[in-house]
């Protein structure tokens, strides 16, 4: 059996991921977080008479805080495996990736461990986020004037 035939055999024998189910789960879980976020926005703008933009910053901060606390208490990783990517895509996922690295490497020292590995997973998000923001800004300036 050559390599190509073997790859075909492996593909045949490996169980397929149920992508549709994963997508539906992620859609509803992510959607629920968005739904609760919208409530939160409404609550903050009404109660504290802030602008929607300010309320949005408070929402982000709250999601990050909640995500971090849930990771620190060890709930998040169990939920991620059940709720699929619905839990990761909102800001909570970013907070979770940073906190899980920090928890893992804190025992290897503040500089060599925690500091060096803090953005191990989130580093790509920051780097490519900034780069794509830069290019999208250029597009907007060119198109929008």
């Amino acid at each position: 059996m050559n390599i190509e035939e073997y790859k075909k055999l492996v593909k045949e024998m490996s169980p397929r991921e149920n992508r549709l189910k994963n997508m539906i789960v992620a859609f509803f879980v992510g959607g629920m977080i968005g739904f609760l976020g919208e409530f939160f926005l409404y609550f903050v703008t009404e109660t504290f008479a802030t602008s929607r933009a300010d309320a949005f910053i408070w929402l982000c901060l709250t999601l990050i805080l909640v995500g971090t606390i849930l990771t620190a208490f060890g709930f998040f990783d169990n939920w991620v495996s059940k709720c699929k990517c619905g839990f990761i895509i909102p800001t909570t996922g970013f907070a979770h990736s940073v906190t899980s690295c920090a928890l893992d490497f804190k025992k290897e020292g503040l500089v060599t461990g925690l500091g060096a590995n803090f953005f191990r997973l989130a580093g790509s998000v920051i780097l490519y986020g900034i780069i794509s923001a830069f290019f999208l800004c250029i597009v907007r300036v060119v198109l929008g004037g």
Partner: protein
Amino acid sequence: MASCKYKNVYLNDYYTVVGPLEKESRLKGYDIALDDFYYNEKTFELAEVKMQNVVIDNILFKNGLKTSEVDLLIGGDLTNQISVTNYSARNYNFPFLGLYAACATFPESLIVGANFIDNMNYKKIITITSSHNLTAEKQFRYPTEYGAPKPHTATFTATGSAATLLSRAESRIKIESSTIGTPVDMGIKDANNLGAVMAPAAASTLLRHLSDLKRDADYYDLILTGDLGCVGGEIFKEYLKRNQNMKLKNHLDAGCELFLKGQDTYAGGSGPVCLPLVLFNRILLSRKYKKILIIGTGALHSPTLVNQKKSIPAIAHAVSLEVL
């Protein structure tokens, strides 16, 4: 010739420690079970070192051995530079050989030990192996708390440690023969499907073993592969069927036999300790099998080379055991 027969090598005793998830699994009769992943230590790595020390100490204690009576300690694990085994070996004054064959470490240590006893007149040898789900996760995948969703082909590293005592003194388990495998690379690059990576290596070692010793697969009551998992185990059988027209009836996979269905461990258990745990705490307890061929399978990958998009080589070593 990669296979050899041994005249007088026996596996006198074994001792096993299992992790919290393995406690609830299909295993029975283990010696100690952990309640949490830390085992009263500060880090997961230190917990794994402690597991190894506990099994070695108990092997020494149960058999009334003094440090000076142990001629050699052989073993390995999954962490960087097999540091867990190195750090546990420093607590003893034994001559020490560290091995790395990923999840094939257990049979490899039996092979090395059996050869030293049969040919070099070594009297007593202890072999040690361990794995810890969270140190392995950290080593090969993501930080422990990250819990990224995994496909159904992924396996779940078992937590535990197992030590054995080998010598010439006659006992219930005889190490009869062994085959050293060759690295096999069938071009699979997916580190989440290690069963598929290792299945051809297991098949190659099995065929080599049978042809070297002029045996038929039916000679054995049980062929127990190490940690191909439920998916890899099926690929292994299908590969043999299509390639050699060989139908294995007496095959079980330790990874697939370890956890219960509801434990959410994807395609089953893996790790160097998976094979000894299932062998000692499940297969031998059933007393159904007399001639057992264990084939430990290891994926020889590192995260660096997987990220460099290189395909993963695998190795498998076989040891034939006779339960008297």
